[in-house]
């Protein structure tokens, strides 16, 4: 007997759907459930309603971590796309050695965030890195101690993150630029529109879907940002560079508080869902207009 192709098309989806429903959604349900219990080291606690959530939001450390998600996330996404865009436009001007430059901009994406964090921690460490070097050159007044300044340390994470991911953005945006019809450029030239205005007024709006892709890829890194923080600042100085993922993992194992870790995870989940819902809504509105 021959199975209809449509049926086969459905069947090939089954393993993925099963895997996702059980692995991802099952795990989420389990986590949400645990967030209502008093569980400590082991997930065996009694139900305590919303207590863990009150505890969570009562903690300064969680509030800092939650805020950092937006501070780090916003800056990381902005600068990754910004740097990617500038590099892509520069490479689009018919420069020589394009693939050489592309390779250099792109290679950090092959490195893990752990490696990225270690390398940048070294460079930015005031006593062994850049600051000491520049002072050694004779500029005694030079100071670049962001890594040990609680107000500035979060920006060191942004620097390292942008270093890691901007290259991929460059490639994606560059691909978008290449796909734009030469006719459009010619038409622009005929009308005497400057290159700058062409980019701003015509080309970039056409690349809107490309930027959405960039945004999605980067946002995934932000929500999962754990390795980079651990390798680079360990969440410090103090807990000034803590992020939700680190808070959750710390409490899961080190602090032996699965209940509150799960409450944090649930909050993170709700946040992600809210952002997805909002962007879907805005996206619809955009297309309707």
């Amino acid at each position, binding site marked *: 007997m021959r199975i209809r192709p449509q049926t086969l098309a459905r069947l090939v989806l089954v393993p993925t759907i099963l895997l996702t429903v059980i692995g991802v959604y099952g795990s989420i349900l389990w986590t949400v459930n645990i967030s209502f219990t008093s569980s400590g080291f*082991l997930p065996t606690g009694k139900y305590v309603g919303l207590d863990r959530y009150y505890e969570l939001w009562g903690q300064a450390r969680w509030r800092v971590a939650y805020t950092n998600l937006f501070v780090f996330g916003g800056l990381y996404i902005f600068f990754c796309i910004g740097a990617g865009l500038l590099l892509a436009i520069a490479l689009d001007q018919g420069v020589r050695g394009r693939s050489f430059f592309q390779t250099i901009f792109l290679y950090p994406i092959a490195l893990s965030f752990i490696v990225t964090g270690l390398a940048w921690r070294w460079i930015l460490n005031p*006593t062994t890195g850049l600051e000491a070097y520049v002072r050694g050159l004779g500029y005694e007044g030079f100071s670049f*101690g962001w890594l*040990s300044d609680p107000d500035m340390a979060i920006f060191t994470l942004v620097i390292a993150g942008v270093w890691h991911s901007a290259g991929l953005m460059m490639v994606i945006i560059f691909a978008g630029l290449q796909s734009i019809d030469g006719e459009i450029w010619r038409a622009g030239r005929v009308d005497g529109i400057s290159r700058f205005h062409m980019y701003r007024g015509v080309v970039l709006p056409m690349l809107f879907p490309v930027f959405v892709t960039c945004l999605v890829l980067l946002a995934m890194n932000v929500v999962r940002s754990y390795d980079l923080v651990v390798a680079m*600042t360990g969440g*410090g100085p*103090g*807990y000034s560079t803590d992020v939700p993922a680190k808070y959750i993992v710390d*409490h899961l194992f*080190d602090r032996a508080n699965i209940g509150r870790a799960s409450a944090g995870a649930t909050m993170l989940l709700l946040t992600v869902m809210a952002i997805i819902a909002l962007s879907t809504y805005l996206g619809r509105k955009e297309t309707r207009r």
Partner: protein
Amino acid sequence: MKIAVTRLTAALLGSAIAVPALAEEVEVVHWLTAGAESAAIQVLVDGVEARGTTWIDLATPGGGSDARALFSSRLAGGDPVGALFMSIGPEAIELGEQGVVRDVEGFAQENDLIASVPDFALDIARGSDGELFALPVALETQNFMWYSLPAFEAAGIEPATTWQGLIDAAPALKEAGIIPLAMGAQGWQIDILFTAVIASVAGPEKYLAIYRDRDADAAASDDVLEAFRIMRALSELQDEGSSNRAWNDTLNLVAQDKAAVQVMGSWAGAELASMGETYGTDWGCALAGGGGAIVGSTGFAFPVLSENEGGQNDFILTLMDPAVQTAFSVQKGSIPARTDASTEGLSECAVVAAESVAAGNGMPNVSAVLNPDSRGQINDMMANFWSNPSMSPEDAAKTFASLIGG
């Protein structure tokens, strides 16, 4: 090789076909890895293997969190390990009350293993019905000041062992290009410094009232405020690179005479020795700020097993063997948990700590009396205070009191 192939096949089949055990074995989770600690673990390995049990090493050099992750994932997987290294405290009791780790009281009594262990080191591992959920191998002092003699010499002053002495010595040290206080600004390291300060300022009784009894009045006393004032002054003595610096990197500053003093546990002394530095000419030690010794009880908890309990028993017998305990502490710079174990070969600093404990000035460390979560919240707050000059000692003392009392 054959076993490896069998395991590979079993793994590829995705099933849990147990590879038949040839002899008793014990799987040990610990994070005593390089350097002196590794030598101490080797003492246990040799002892266990001399009893005919195979030691399967599950070291997590990343430290306690990795070890807990490994331990609880093995537990959740229904395949618990044989022994879990820990700083004994409420964690052991929680695991015990959940029925996850063995009550070793009976086994220990039968084999006469714990008669000479100080009560406090056992009490911190006892459940509500007197069960014993962990056994100590060594007592570790955590409030030593390790000082570089050449560093003080370079500044032309005597080594300072009091807080005020160190603060006063700072200008001279800085003048000589020396970092007065070597600090690794991570939560736990800051907390080690803070408990050292508070133990010396408030004394053992108040220390116990605060941490063990969680007495809100004691936690809100002027001594605590004074301790935070000292902490603020000390925080100005560190160098710029302290942020998130591992303790061994930090100790290296003392070893190289770039920094004058580090406050760290007894394990640092063993490291200094293994770095080839000589006690008395290169470095010295003192109980920090002149307080009593704050001791942690280092030992193991033993998960309830369905097989290989013989291997676990061999491990316990080895762990509590007085000769093994002495050899372990000689390597690690600690004190044997059994007071009837020989003290021969212990380091000069360990003897200082042992005397303090014997004189009744010993105090349990924070992880012995506070659960990981309370400890963690205090660590967070401490780390924030240390790195954030805009937080006043008054505010910090208030927050501290509410964390203790709450």
